[in-house]
């Protein structure tokens, strides 16, 4: 998997994930994803558009960082997952724990309001 990040201003970062988030994919990005989202009071917009596959091991990666970030007073949201990945988020119930937005602007607006 590929992982890139782009700063969107004060403590706000867009993290772009690309590839299959299966056992191998999650292993490839786990440590970097953890480190990138470890921002006190940070806002992380995780761009899922390039993620073609999401298994429970990948959900685990997302949940760990989302929880850690929330504990640090920050927020993590998911942006623009494709139809298949959306189905996985819904079936696992993760969409009720981590907010999911259809596009970046809406996500940005949502995390910017306190």
């Amino acid at each position, binding site marked *: 998997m590929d992982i890139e990040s782009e700063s969107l201003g004060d403590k706000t970062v867009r993290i772009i994930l690309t590839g*299959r988030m*299966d*056992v*191998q994919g999650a292993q490839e990005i786990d*440590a970097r994803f*953890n*480190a990138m989202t*470890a921002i006190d009071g940070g806002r992380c917009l995780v761009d899922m558009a390039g993620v073609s*596959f*999401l*298994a*429970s*091991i990948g*959900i*685990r990666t997302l*949940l*760990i960082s*989302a*929880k*850690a970030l*929330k*504990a640090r007073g920050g927020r993590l949201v998911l942006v623009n997952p494709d*139809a*298949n990945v959306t*189905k*996985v988020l819904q*079936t*696992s*119930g*993760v969409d*009720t*724990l*981590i907010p999911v937005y259809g596009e970046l602007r809406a996500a940005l607006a949502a995390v910017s309001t306190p």
Partner: protein
Amino acid sequence: MSAARELRLRNDFAELRRMSEWLADACAAFQVPQGLRFDLDIAANEAVTNIISYGFENSASHQIVLRVSRQRDRVAPEIDDDGRPFDPLRYPEPATPASLEEAPIGGLGVKLMRGLIRDCRYERRDGRNRLVMAGTCPMPQGATPLEPSGEAAPSRPRGSDRRRRTMTPEELSAAGIAERRSQRDRRRAGFISASRFLSGVPYHLVEDVLARCSVRNLNKGDVLLAPGQMNDCMHLLQEGQLRIHLDSPDSGDFIPVQPVDCIGELSILDGKPVSAYVVAHEPSRVLAIHESVFWEVLLPIPEVAKNLFRVLSERMRLNNELILQRMKDHLVLEQLRQELRIARSIQSSMLPAGWPMFPGRGDVDICASMDPAEEVGGDFYDAFFVGRHRLFLAVGDVSGKGVPAALFMARAMTVLRTEALRGRPPHEILDWLNASLCENNDASMFVTILCGLFDTRSGRFTYSNAGHNPPYAGRAGGYYELPVPRGPLAGIDPDARFSSAECRLARGDTLVLYTDGVPEAMDAAQRPLSEGRLVSLLQAAPRGSARDLVEAIRAGVAGHVQSAARSDDITLMVLRHRG
């Protein structure tokens, strides 16, 4: 349309990608639509991940077989493995937690699998687990016309030679069966044609027989047969439901008898009294075929004999399954053991590998070991470079045992790794760790940790302590305990603050970190090894590599413990400065 493919996988996570690629090819060949392909891919990934993670007791190579078949509109991947019995469908579906803070991190794989593929089935047979996950998809373009599915027989030409034909429902309804004019005739005829017992039997051979059979109507609770009774009829259930009870007519253990099943054939066959109760569970209707008719007219018909054998085999199989179910209930204990194994594997999979750990480095020699207790404790160690010459070290011990301890340990290690990589000094790392562990810690678990940063150029060791045993520093003159800054256990008091201390190691000096499992290792008479003895072991050890020293101490501890059961994990980390 019917086709099948098969793939053999090793129990190695690296095989998952190969599996997904193969599955994509198979689905494409079987013209499975995209949405279902994705669902099957997820389900197969989850199922095989589970098998690789928990299925095998040893690390030997095992084979997992994936078969995909398509029949008509049904595509059904099937996963077959020889691991320990594991039925993923047996676990209750976890509820979705109300908030992110309460959400558990794991357990989603099975939920996903069941959520995406509604038709999952599991069976254990011949020492293998078999999981079938079926989906339906539209018939592909250009497929051959379907055969009728289900029981309906293909239509046959109606010739004048009735003798060569098998029965059709229409003919049966005219076969002189009792009450043939009733509204139920057609349904009953359907029952006869679907009956495994009489299916495929040439019509003219049973025409008279069926007309001679008597029909018996039963009310709910009526006992058709009872143990000890002599029985001279075989019964075919036409409508309703009967139950076979082996011990008493109202016991909870029963074998259901559905319409088209036959009963009483055993007592006809061996001439012995009935061996069980047969009770009507609802109003039922039974066709009684007398023994003499059975032997003289029916059994000589090859199709009847064949059907009888089939009925008997199925009955036997059902009994086997009931027995198996009882055995499964006895496996609860085994499952608890498996939980411990899972906890053990969580624990050991978190620890860094390498023996010694950074064999390529000339400036530091470091080696660590964790020998698990019988029950799962929560010892851990970690070591990694946070800069070219800055090595982070930690040894810790989580309170409690079992899965909760293993998970708490995983939490602690994750925070340590994250905060250390951010370049914080040791006492700040412990501040963060403590704050993080205090949250959502309803079980009041805690951890003791000694962690530090070692500069491989200067030999400076900066360390902080959360309620852990002080490390030893060794030099040519002997080993001495390093003074440790005061620090409480982590995970209890959210306001606790930690501080750092430092020392400098000269070239050739040794640092020994350990958990209390070492000095407290008990022999058969419950005498601990003690700190004094540990120092003697260190001093007596030959001057070799870090690994030699770890092995010498382990041998010393093993010599003390002998055959006594280990009650706690035993963890050691040795660093030798070579800078």
